[in-house]
């Protein structure tokens, strides 16, 4: 594989984390415009820990995930009882606040004659842990997809379990779920926390892949894109969001056929696709059909 292909595949993997994070909330019946905030929290927290304090990446990733989950709980606690557009706008407001706080974040220190750390709108350079530790681009690609594979396996196992049934029932009909003894509020809070941690893990990897992050990386565009990825790919299986990302970043951007008109092609494709498949390519029916066919 050449470097370009490795870069594209790595990006597909990285954005799959935040798409999965939007997907799991969609299953629970909530449409979030704000998962990019936790991606950003993960990126900044992970970057600060490895580049400024020399913490090894695995530890930094765990800490960033905990912080992402915490941030998601803080946002979710006052908002998860809101419905539809109210929840979407509350998460959007929270995420935009996070982005502005990143813009206001000036937190630097001298390290071997160099200033490192977030410098407001100037961004945060020099997150070089993977280079300093001799990890090649191919190795990093393996790391990203290895983690993603593990997460998808967990998703697939969960979806066939009682927990997965609960998740979908909470999304389909919260009153019915509540009457069957599910504590809907607490359940959704748990889902939001997990989604936050997932997005944060993606953020840590994103920061270390790019070595440079800036507040603009985590604007509303990323949030709505991840929602769109989940919906195009399909709401029937955790592979759906991955398919969505792969279609946009992998096929359209990666193939470089469309150049400057990529967004026009992608936008039209998505709108037409949703007319025929409003729950995405891999929706529940297709997944059920595949499952009965191959098992």
């Amino acid at each position, binding site marked *: 594989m050449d470097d370009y292909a490795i870069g594209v595949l790595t990006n597909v993997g990285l954005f799959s984390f935040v798409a999965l994070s939007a997907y799991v909330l969609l299953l629970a019946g909530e449409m979030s415009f704000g998962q990019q905030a936790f991606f950003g929290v993960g990126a900044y927290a992970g970057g600060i820990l490895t580049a400024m304090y020399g913490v090894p990446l695995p530890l930094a990733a765990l800490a960033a995930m905990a912080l992402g989950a915490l941030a998601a709980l803080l946002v979710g606690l*006052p908002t998860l009882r809101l419905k*539809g557009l109210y929840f979407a706008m509350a998460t959007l407001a929270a995420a935009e606040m996070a982005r502005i706080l990143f813009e206001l974040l000036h937190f630097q220190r001298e390290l071997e004659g160099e200033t490192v750390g977030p410098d407001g709108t100037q961004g945060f350079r020099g997150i070089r842990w993977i280079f300093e530790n001799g990890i090649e681009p191919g190795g990093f690609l393996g790391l990203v997809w290895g983690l993603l594979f593990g997460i998808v396996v967990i998703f697939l196992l969960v979806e066939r379990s009682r927990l997965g049934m609960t998740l979908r029932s909470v999304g389909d009909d919260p009153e019915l779920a509540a009457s069957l003894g599910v504590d809907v509020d607490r359940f959704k809070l748990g889902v939001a926390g997990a989604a936050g941690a997932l997005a944060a893990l993606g953020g840590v990897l994103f920061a270390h892949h790019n070595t440079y992050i800036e507040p603009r990386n985590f604007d509303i565009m990323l949030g709505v894109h991840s929602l769109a990825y989940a919906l*195009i790919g399909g709401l029937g299986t955790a592979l759906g969001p991955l398919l969505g990302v792969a279609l946009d970043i992998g096929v359209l951007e990666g193939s470089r056929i469309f150049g400057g008109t990529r967004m026009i092609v992608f936008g*039209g494709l998505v709108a037409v696709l949703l007319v025929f498949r*409003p729950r995405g390519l891999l929706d529940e029916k297709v997944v059920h059909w595949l499952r009965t066919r191959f098992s």
Partner: protein
Amino acid sequence: MFLDLAQNTLDGLARGSAYALLALGFTLVFGVLRRVNLSYGPAIMLGCYLATWASMAIHANLILLLAVSVAGTVLAGAYVERLCFAPHRKGSAIAAMVASFALWMQLEELAVLALPRHLYAFPALYEGSPLQFLGLTLRVESGVMIVVAAGVCVALRRTLYHSKFGLAVRAAVENPVAASLAGISLPGVFVRVFAVASALGGLAGFLISATHEQVTPMLGMWSTLKGLLAMMLGGLGSLPGAVIGGLALGLVEAHSQWFFGPQLRDLIAYLLLFLLLAMRPRWMTTQSAS
């Protein structure tokens, strides 16, 4: 100090009138179709880009530019309606919204391909000096914005309550089944509401561009975000609410910008929305939003 406060309030009202116009368009569509049109801002942007192009290519005068902005926005709006809202009328609101986001990407890219620079000059609405009274300054453009916003409110109210079209719209909102049994074509009402909202957007976009005397590729996202924010602050789904929400957003922004600067201004506006949503006062939750 008192004079500063009064001046900020005046600036806020002007700013808020623009937001109110944007929020009215959003609210019309949401109130009638129960759908969020994320492409609203980008359609406005396309209209204004078309007008910018007309001003550069044929030096069109302001009246013609207004017509081009409105026509361009309505055309883009019609495209969005056909592809994102007509097919999902009975289906999923999320699918319609994501589809409108997809077309956002398209419209924005189209506008940027046509005029690729980061900034284009837009002809000024008024070249003279601002009005001065009681020690306050009011730009004539801002005065026009306030007057137009007020006029649009009156006209919308008259249309909704004193015309056959308005009756059909209200019937379609109140009880769609009874309305269609009474011979009202729901798709027809939706299309016309969408057209009215788009025309309003074109008007708002023209006034905003002619006030700022420039267009940038940020116009699309800016219009969508400000319109949504104002609509939500006003409680979602009522036209007076949209106006109050727009004015409130303008006032909060003008005052917080003066006290704390532009970055904190945006932070405060979002914080206000977040807190209001989290506390859910009764006027914010009377409309169901699913």
